[in-house]
């Protein structure tokens, strides 16, 4: 959960990118890391296997600016998408303030998307969170691929609540910052409501 430090005048919030294996969570973070100015970012940490699959998590700290005299920091995490890393995925959701679900738009990954979404709901529940109450945004990634399902179909399958959803092509950066910005706004609004 958010950490408000009155002494250092800082607020830190945790945002987690969730989704099936190879959907582009790490690519989202890599794009943000590449594009954001050096004074607004820390080091990006990737705990990955030798074949560059996420083993535990990726971590990217951002310090975007100030609100009401408090420095606002966002800590971005990804989870490992592969099914057998469920124990690790669960751990990363601890203390989450906002979630971005990255869906793979390819038709053959629809089952994987649905499975990952169910897994997200279940793992959040184990931490006492309800996805319905959490700042939450969906990203439909890989929109540039010829086998991409239409956004309407993706919405029907993955977004019954009609939360904000963004089309994206993570390697080119399309939709990456829009998604992050929206969830960051929701997180800060939540902080305001709780205060």
């Amino acid at each position, binding site marked *: *959960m958010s950490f408000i*430090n009155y002494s250092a005048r800082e607020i830190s919030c945790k945002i987690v990118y969730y989704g099936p294996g190879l959907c582009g969570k790490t690519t989202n973070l890599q794009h943000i890391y590449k594009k954001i100015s050096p004074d607004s970012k820390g080091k990006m940490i990737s705990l990955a296997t030798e074949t560059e699959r996420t083993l535990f998590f990726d971590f990217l*700290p951002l310090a975007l600016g100030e*609100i*009401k005299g408090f420095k606002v920091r966002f*800590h971005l995490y990804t989870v490992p998408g592969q099914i057998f890393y469920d124990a*690790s995925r669960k751990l*990363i959701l601890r203390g989450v*303030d906002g979630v971005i679900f990255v869906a793979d738009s390819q038709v053959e990954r629809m089952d994987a998307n649905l499975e990952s979404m169910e897994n997200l709901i279940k793992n959040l529940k184990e931490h006492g969170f309800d996805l319905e109450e959490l700042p939450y945004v969906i990203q439909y990634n890989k929109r540039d691929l010829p086998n991409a399902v239409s956004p309407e179909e993706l919405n029907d399958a993955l977004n019954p609540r009609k939360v904000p959803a963004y089309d994206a092509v993570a390697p080119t950066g399309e939709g990456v910052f829009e998604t992050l910005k929206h969830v960051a706004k929701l997180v800060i609004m939540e*902080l305001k409501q709780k205060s």
Partner: protein
Amino acid sequence: MLNPGLVLFEEDSRLIDKELKKLNELARAKVSFLVDKDGQLISSMGETGDIDTTSLASLTAGNIAATGGMAKLLGEKEFSILFHEGEKDNIHISLVGQRAILVVVFDDRSSLGLIRLRVKRSVAALAAVFDNLAKKIEKSNAQEGGQSPFQEITEEDIESLFG
């Protein structure tokens, strides 16, 4: 929500810094950190110059979370102490109540025995700070109309973050 966010006031922050400074000196450690279990750095003391404290905090929390997961699988409540031995530097990690993690980095100017002894005392002192903090927050939540600087956040404030 199950876990309320962590709030740290100046007075508590001073007490934590004071305890970490004392620990660092008495244990002859290089650096002492206090990290929230969610991965946020609370305070650091000592030779922090070339250490990426933000990353270290996040990795420590991941480490503790993974160890906690292993403990559960084995039917243990938790493993409250972790120790990593390196060629030059070593890391001693211990839980402070249910909320924080104390990390001490030391080299051959100190010893594991001395670190363990001093950490044990500091953990008790730091746990007391967090207990008081929890009581303080409970009390302030119970009082109506507490002024928070975040009540007046506007859409424009948020927009300004993203330039």
